[in-house]
């Protein structure tokens, strides 16, 4: 069962060199308030897992601009000039992961799998050094789980048991990131009473949520 805490309390859970996941796709579904709370702390040298680094001044990009991040596992940095500059100057380590495979690797961690055989990137740099499997003439490469210590995610509504509902396309990486870390902290627009969300509509069951932060609090 989750606890309701403040954004500051959430940010203070981080330690230097922590591995974190931050949800969202070009800001949609990103816990921006929590990003601001992290920027306000002294934490440094974070390892960040995310789909992209959003924009210089928006979304998870705020962590990059505030120089909180030393390494990344990410699928795309094209919308963030700071990320690109830091990468080119060698100040940021990046592992580029195909977007769907990033989701698979996080889900593998959250679902207790040892890895998956992926058809993506066979014959490209992504396949280098990875074990392969061949079946009916198709080649697959072994992709390992990606875990973190803390996931920061964003939902529209949580009930007090942590059941989550998202707004439209903002769910993107949220459901898998809710599973992939030891601790999951969700930023929400509103918290409703238990029982107010129809069991059919719950997208992320509360079992995956450890802490709830109401945006701005």
């Amino acid at each position, binding site marked *: 069962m989750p606890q309701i805490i403040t954004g500051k309390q959430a940010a203070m859970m981080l330690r230097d060199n922590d591995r974190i996941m931050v949800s969202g796709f*070009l800001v949609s579904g990103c816990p921006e308030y929590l990003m601001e709370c992290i920027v306000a702390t002294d934490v440094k040298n974070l390892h960040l897992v995310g789909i992209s680094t959003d924009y210089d001044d928006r979304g998870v990009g705020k962590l990059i601009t505030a120089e909180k991040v030393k390494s990344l596992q990410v699928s795309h940095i094209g919308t963030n000039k700071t990320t690109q500059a830091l990468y080119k100057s060698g100040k940021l380590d990046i592992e580029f992961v195909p977007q769907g*495979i990033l989701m698979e690797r996080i889900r593998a961690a959250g679902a207790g799998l040892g890895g998956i055989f992926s058809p993506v*990137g066979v014959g490209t740099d992504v396949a280098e050094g990875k074990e392969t499997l061949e079946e009916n003439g198709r080649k697959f490469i072994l992709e390992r789980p990606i875990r973190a210590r803390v996931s920061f995610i964003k939902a529209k509504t949580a009930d007090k048991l942590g059941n989550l509902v998202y707004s439209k396309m903002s*769910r993107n990486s949220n459901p898998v990131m809710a599973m992939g870390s030891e601790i999951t902290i969700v930023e929400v627009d509103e918290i409703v009473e238990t029982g107010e969300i129809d069991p059919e509509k719950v997208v992320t069951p509360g079992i995956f949520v450890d802490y709830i932060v109401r945006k701005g609090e």
Partner: protein
Amino acid sequence: MEKQNKRDMICRRIASELKDGDYCNLGIGLPTGVADHIPSDMRVYFQSENGILGAGPRPESGMEDPDLINAGGGPITAIPGASYFDSFWSFSMIRGGHVDMTVLGALQVDQEGSIANWMIPGKLVPGIGGAMDLVSGARQVVAAMEHTDKYGKSKILKKCNLPLTGHRVLTMIVTDMAAIKVTDEGLVLVDVAEGFTVEDVIKATDADLIIPDTVGLFN
């Protein structure tokens, strides 16, 4: 020809490959235009990998929703019958062969059907995004691109020298000069663009082209 006309021509030619009821994913940039060239009596459903099936056109100004965006971050709408899903299921859909066609921009393509569109070492590193998943899984993988670079050099090579997005994955290449099918035998020139001859295309193409008895025209 003006740039917009060129783009329209490429997109129209690609749209003509779609069938009624198809599911299609459009990459950012040039490919986005394919949606504007679907015949009005045909239903094509657009998938955006960030989590929608049934993406509709840009909303009117003031009606943008930050949680309704395409893969490039631009505002979209949802058509009646649309569905939202997370990225895990979105890419399961893509990799599992459920999407009929993906259309992607390209820096280079080659006669093996490989495509490079995610980085120029030391210069441009936007990252892979969803492109590698898309080329590995969609039933048809179409490259939409200009035939030559700004120095007039062919972007259709014998072998790509940029880091690959996909190895032997393309089914078709459509440029401002030609529509080319990728087959097990090699690149087959299907159509040339109005204003060009077969010879023009061969001359502008580094890759070997197979020229069938009849070559069509598109505009």
